[in-house]
């Protein structure tokens, strides 16, 4: 039982009551998040990208920042409520995913945009403001939510900016960047290659161009 408990820990965060995870009810059906009208309007890539460039490391490069925003947007769209979770080892409990965070997150994105417009003398939209100004606006928003040092699972994040960041930090791209090596966790590789030291990440992460 190697990874079991690690994964359990990761996903038990997801099953905690705080995340509104439901105890499985008989006949519960998974429901795509996209069924909630209007929820995804502010969660498309153009809306998320200006947040991504604030919370993700610049060293990642514009291309990968965009990729992270695309993947997060897709993640939200494909979220299903009431989907059965992997049942943890050592427990008889069966639980399911809770309500989609899309509505709450969309509201938070909209609030960022509105506060940007309100603060800017030229009423420039959030996306058109400088990185510095956007960073200040996101920092303001984060000051009003409580979060710990430990990276939560995206679904548990109290703010969409943290959810986007948490989603990225859980990806192989993030670990590769931190170590500057192509570790490529959870991706297929020829067995013999795993005995070699991972190769150094290509410098030109920007847009994936070598």
């Amino acid at each position: 039982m190697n990874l079991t408990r690690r994964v359990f820990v990761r996903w038990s965060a997801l099953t905690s009551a705080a995340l509104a995870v439901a105890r499985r009810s008989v006949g519960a059906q998974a429901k795509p998040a996209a069924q909630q009208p209007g929820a995804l309007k502010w969660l498309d890539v153009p809306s998320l990208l200006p947040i991504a460039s604030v919370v993700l490391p610049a060293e990642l490069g514009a291309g990968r920042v965009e990729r992270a925003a695309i993947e997060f947007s897709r993640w939200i769209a494909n979220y299903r409520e009431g989907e059965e979770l992997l049942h943890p080892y050592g427990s008889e409990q069966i639980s399911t995913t809770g309500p989609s965070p899309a509505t709450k997150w969309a509201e938070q994105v909209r609030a960022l945009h509105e506060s940007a417009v309100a603060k800017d003398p030229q009423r420039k939209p959030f996306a058109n403001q400088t990185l510095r100004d956007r960073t200040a606006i996101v920092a303001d928003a984060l000051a009003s939510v409580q979060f710990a040092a430990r990276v939560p699972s995206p679904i548990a994040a109290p703010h969409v900016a943290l959810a986007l960041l948490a989603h990225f930090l859980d990806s192989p791209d993030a670990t590769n960047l931190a170590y500057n090596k192509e570790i490529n966790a959870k991706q297929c590789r020829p067995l013999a290659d795993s005995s070699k030291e991972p190769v150094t990440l290509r410098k030109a992460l920007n847009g994936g161009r070598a």
Partner: protein
Amino acid sequence: MSRAFIARRVVESDICIIGSGISAAMVAAQLAGERRASIIVIEAGDDQPQVKDWAANRKRWMDYGSTPWPNDHVEGLDANGIQSRSMCVGGMAMHWGGVTPRFAPEDFKTKSLCGVGYDWPLSYEELEPHYYEAEALMGVSGEQGPREMDPRANPFPMPPLPLTYNLGILKKWVNDAGVSMWSQPSAKTSQPYHGRGACCRNDTCFPICPVSAKYSPDQTWNPLRAKKQVVMHTRTVVRRLIVDERSNRIVAAVAVERDRPGQEIEFRAKTFVVAAGYAWSAHLLLNSRSARFPNGVANRAGLVGKYLTGHRNVQAFIDLPLTLYPGINEQHSLVTKQFMRKPLGEKYLRHDLRVWESAVGREPRLKDESGKPLLGDALLADWRSRLKTSTARVRSYYDIIPARDSELTLDAAKKTPWGDPAPHLAFKDDSVSRDLRGYSEDSIRGLFGRLAQAGNGKIIRTSVDNFQDHPAGGCRMGADASTGVVDSHGRAFDHENLFVVGAPTAVSGSCANGTLTFCALALRSAEEIGKAFPAAK
């Protein structure tokens, strides 16, 4: 019309196997291959998704934590104290980790060698050929450890899974500290094997291997069912066994189809094989109460449900001045059997030791020590500052002697959907193990401390899981009816045509993952069961 007048459907076969987990798969594979006998398998749970869906299911698990095995449990069939809800075609081993060490020869005779615990009614040497059969059937890749610790008559079916870059570095560390470790044997392919491709180290063996490099019982059931060598009745729960009025033979297993709960089916057979796992096997025997057998079947000595067994673990994370890259393959480990032999003159302690790469303590964080939020480049810089050293995860399972009242009982307060009492499990250490618990865990922590010191590292944290892993027992084997429910072949002392196979028959849980041993025991039972049927051409 009263219920008494509703005719029961009757299904007949030579051999009726109850349960379709990994132990049942071993028995069925061997009997179908070697004997002329009709075989029926009854499984309470559902069929699971087929291989074509596994990559997508894996992705959803990685993205959302969703189970890759939907409906792998039966509503209403749960119990206090069980380890996993998995009840499905293939059982728990649909999402096991595929780690397959053998027990040590000492495990089978702790009483005579160390004066504690119980001797099994069979030796390692008697089980050895069946260990190999199980390894061949599920395709185990492994490295021969030093022969005095790791005796084997045959090489592993496949060469070892190569050590990852990280494990290569960790191996040098433990070797320098005086511990001899090698590649953990696993039911994962180090090369193409019987139609399965080689493992590609994508590291999700638990809960799902998307490419079938890890053995799971569907690999046995699918061809057996396709060739009609077995007929499987899924979504069908056996509620009780019926004993012949004039003899002690079992004549039928009475079951209910979950889709037609009002109608019972009677499965009649020459031989019955209970392969329902460590919890439900004893439950079925206890629940088969009748006027003649008020304590259930196979329970003359009152031993059904007793001596539930397993092992606890002590774990630590060690910070070491090494450069590792966690994420290459967190599920594969180094292993040693060096501590599975009790040193002369010392208190009873036997344990394994495993070492893994780990990302513990290397995670990114959202705030620094002062509580200041970290975003973007600041977060990355902070993360990198904590990657200058690396983490090893070390863990030892230690052997526990089960108490007689480490037991499964029928829970009068909790019913199954069919009105039967649910099982209730309570694992308890025998007084020897209870008294030694502090010593055992301190000694293991001491070993971890010495390993850390030898590598100029320090312990980040240690923990002990309170539950017993790789649960087994409940229908343990014995030399006679006063010490066991079944003999060393799994045959019930009280009913000559009733076998219990695999985990429930184990006498003790050793200090290593148990499933390979459960499978070897099941294959030994299958050999005995087969003797009542003509050889296949």
